[in-house]
């Protein structure tokens, strides 16, 4: 176990370890539910007048609960030993409690926002629909919502790596004025402890009412169960399934680990692949956003296949100034850390658009093109970033490879999330 809060051991002894039932049947490919891993009102092709809606019914958004306690310790191809990456010993009661908290919209100050409103299950546990999320009363958040899939594999949390455990991390969005905007920790705890279901759940899970520690533990318990490996790449790389990747994807892998040098930061090991080095780098994306060219015009999408260009000053009349973001520097105050952001894992990356810390790149192609040009040149640019001289075919192959990183387990997690009740004021 990599990290554990003091005091948890006793709680764990008291709590029933509920991972006894095997989850093998539930997680088998044959049992995968029919779930779309994309927004329910998919807008693919919206830039064409030929666009047709592909909209799902919310009434039919149903799921099947998964034994997450078992799932959290079930080995998955391509991932490290699950017991090595646990922050907390999985416990069914705690996970169930954490899941209810995660989908509880009452946990924001005006009872309209849950964790899941920005980390939307079918959208890769992020939001595909916005560059950056919208918080309390519509306030702007300056960073793209990170996917929570495999979040426990990170050593530190947030893209500036300012937090050291999932359990601690949970309080930041609950208290941030532009996210859930709760006025105090005590206010949140009072809200939770007023709910009869929570009273029972906390008693069962922790033997006492909600407090600052166990709320974090519970949310961490749910989030650490969102493990999603066993992608096509993993079957090809770690199970010798030579048919799992297409030729284009195999060519992309060669580029990823060779000419394009993506694997310098997005690590692939012999036994497993985290696709992150856990380090912070300056790729130029942050510098570009902070220092370079104000747009004079912006293109505005009006309807399918219809767009117009308006002067940027028109948008500025109805908009607030663009937020600045200095990355790790905002934590360390060390000038060397300006515009450094943590390397994200690329697992399930095809489902987690838009990309980069600020969501400014809408597609994987935008990202690859950015790195192909050498990021954004400036004096503090990481020496690992350089022009790649990739051909158009090579760009496509790299993208194809990244599309092979989507977990076969994901539908199980999304179906489980769909089975969770969303809590609203009653």
């Amino acid at each position, binding site marked *: 176990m990599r990290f554990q809060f003091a005091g948890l051991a006793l709680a764990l002894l008291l709590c029933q370890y509920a991972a006894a039932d095997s989850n093998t049947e539930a997680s088998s490919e044959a049992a995968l539910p029919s779930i779309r891993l994309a927004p329910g009102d998919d807008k693919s092709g919206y830039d064409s007048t030929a666009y047709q809606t592909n909209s*799902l019914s919310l009434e039919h958004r149903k799921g099947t609960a998964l034994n997450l306690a078992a799932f959290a310790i079930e080995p998955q191809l391509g991932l490290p030993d699950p017991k090595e990456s646990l922050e907390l010993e999985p416990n069914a009661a705690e996970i169930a409690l954490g899941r209810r908290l995660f989908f509880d919209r009452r946990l924001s100050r005006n009872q309209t926002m849950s964790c899941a409103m920005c980390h939307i299950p079918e959208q890769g546990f992020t939001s595909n629909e916005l560059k950056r999320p*919208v918080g309390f009363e519509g306030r702007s958040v300056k960073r793209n919502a990170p996917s929570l899939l495999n979040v426990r594999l990170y050593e530190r949390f947030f893209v500036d790596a300012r937090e050291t455990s999932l359990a601690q991390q949970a309080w930041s969005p609950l208290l941030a004025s532009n996210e859930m905007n709760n006025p105090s920790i005590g206010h949140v705890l009072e809200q939770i402890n007023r709910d009869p279901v929570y009273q029972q759940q906390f008693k069962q899970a922790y033997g006492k009412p909600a407090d600052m520690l166990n709320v974090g533990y519970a949310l961490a318990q749910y989030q650490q169960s969102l493990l999603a490996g066993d992608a096509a790449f993993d079957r090809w790389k770690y199970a010798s399934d030579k048919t799992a990747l297409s030729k284009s994807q195999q060519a992309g892998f060669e580029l990823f680990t060779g000419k394009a040098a993506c694997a310098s930061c997005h690590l692939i090991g012999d036994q497993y692949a985290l696709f992150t080095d856990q380090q912070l780098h300056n790729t130029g994306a942050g510098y570009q956003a902070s220092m370079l060219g104000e747009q004079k015009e912006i293109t505005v999408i009006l309807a399918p296949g219809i767009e117009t260009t308006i002067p940027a000053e028109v948008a500025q*009349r109805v908009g607030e100034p663009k937020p600045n973001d200095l990355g790790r520097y905002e934590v360390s105050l060390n000038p060397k850390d300006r515009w450094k952001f943590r390397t994200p894992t690329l697992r399930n990356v095809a489902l987690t658009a838009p990309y980069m810390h600020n969501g400014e790149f809408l597609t994987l192609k935008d990202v690859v093109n950015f790195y192909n040009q050498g990021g954004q040149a400036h004096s503090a640019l990481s020496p690992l970033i350089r022009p790649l001289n990739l051909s158009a075919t090579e760009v496509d192959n790299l993208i194809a490879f990244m599309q092979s990183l989507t977990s076969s387990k994901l539908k199980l997690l999304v179906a489980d999330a769909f089975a969770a009740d969303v809590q609203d004021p009653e």
Partner: protein
Amino acid sequence: MIKSLFKVACGLFLVSASGISHADETCMSPYMAKIVGQEDFVYVWTLGEEGLGDEQDKLVTISVNPDAPDYGKVVDSLSVGGRNEAHHSGFSDDRRFLWAGGLDSNKIFIFDVHTDPAKPTLHKTIDDFVSKSGGVVGPHTFYALAGRMMITGLSNNKDNGGRTAMVEYSNKGEYVATHWHPTDEDLRGAEKSGQFADGYGYDVRVMPRRNAMFTSSFTGWSNYMMDFGTMLADPEAMKRFGNTAVVWDLHTRQPKKVFDMPGAPLEIRCAWKPNNNYCFTTTALTSQIWLMYEDEQGEWQAKAVADIGDPSKVPLPVDISITSDDNGLWVQTFMDGKARYFDISDPFAPKQVYEKVIGSQLNMISQSWDGKRAYFTSSLLDNWDKKGELDEQFFKSYTWDGDKLNLEFEVDFKKEKLGSAHQMRFGAYGLYGMDRPWENEQSDEGADEAAE
């Protein structure tokens, strides 16, 4: 005592008898009494602004009868707590209660406006709209049906996107049913007439004589709560607007036909005359006037019939209002602050014949039944309103002489520390069989003088 002659229709308007599809004044339901003469009050559902006054949403009552001693003044302000994203409101069919919604908090505030029309009170607050409705977010239009309140939603509690439903309540404020908008996966028996069935919602209007109900489509919580300038520059967010209108069977509440209407069709206003089987709407993003009409075969159709300003510049048409003779349509454009008057005597060929800049930004209009008075307010959505000095917040009262608008008075909502002025509804003593107090006073004074 001199009894004033109230030009207020206090009975229920029976559509078949009156031959009127529904009243404007502005845009009331056909199932309720309407004011055909001089209104006494305008109730302004107002957004609280952080750092201004008491910072919370409120119902502001303005005296608008020129004969009233407090004409042109704010006579009451009722704060409800919180910034709920106050937006639209609508009377119950007996017009005794005004239901007003918060697009963010999902709270519904029901005001008693009949006990003392000059001083509304908060009668009831519904705060379980989302859980009762099965996940509908953003109560928008409050539209009275017989014994019912039909409430359109804008969003949902699963992804904060635009898929949503209408929610039906009883007059007592009890949940009755949820009517989801048709999607590709579940058209609910409707015909998808074109390329779109997005499941989005916005406004609702009915034409009882044709057993028809109409809905339009806007966007979900993530967009309507978002900073407008940020959203315009976010291509993914800009894809999340509705492109449909739906005609429903009014009695069964079943969707019948989904129309393609690209660019977020918003307010719906239906014609008045008994044989004018059509309704107008305007698309906010593509800046067009659309007509939904019944063709010779009795089939409902939809057609774009005019542009509003220069659509490439995104003037952003917002509220609209049809005149009671079906010949005119007011269209407000938010970005340039203009009120535009269209001649719609040929509904298939509207022509703009007048325009006037009302302020730096402009959203709502409410016109009197006789069309002689028009009231305007400024706010669109809290995070969409203009910034800095351009964020004027006003209520302005104009008279319309058929050729031009003439300003009578205005209330500066910032100077009065009220907030951002949004939707307006009319009140009148005569609706509730009451005399106007100042007329009693004048009458009493006259009697005293005569006695002396």
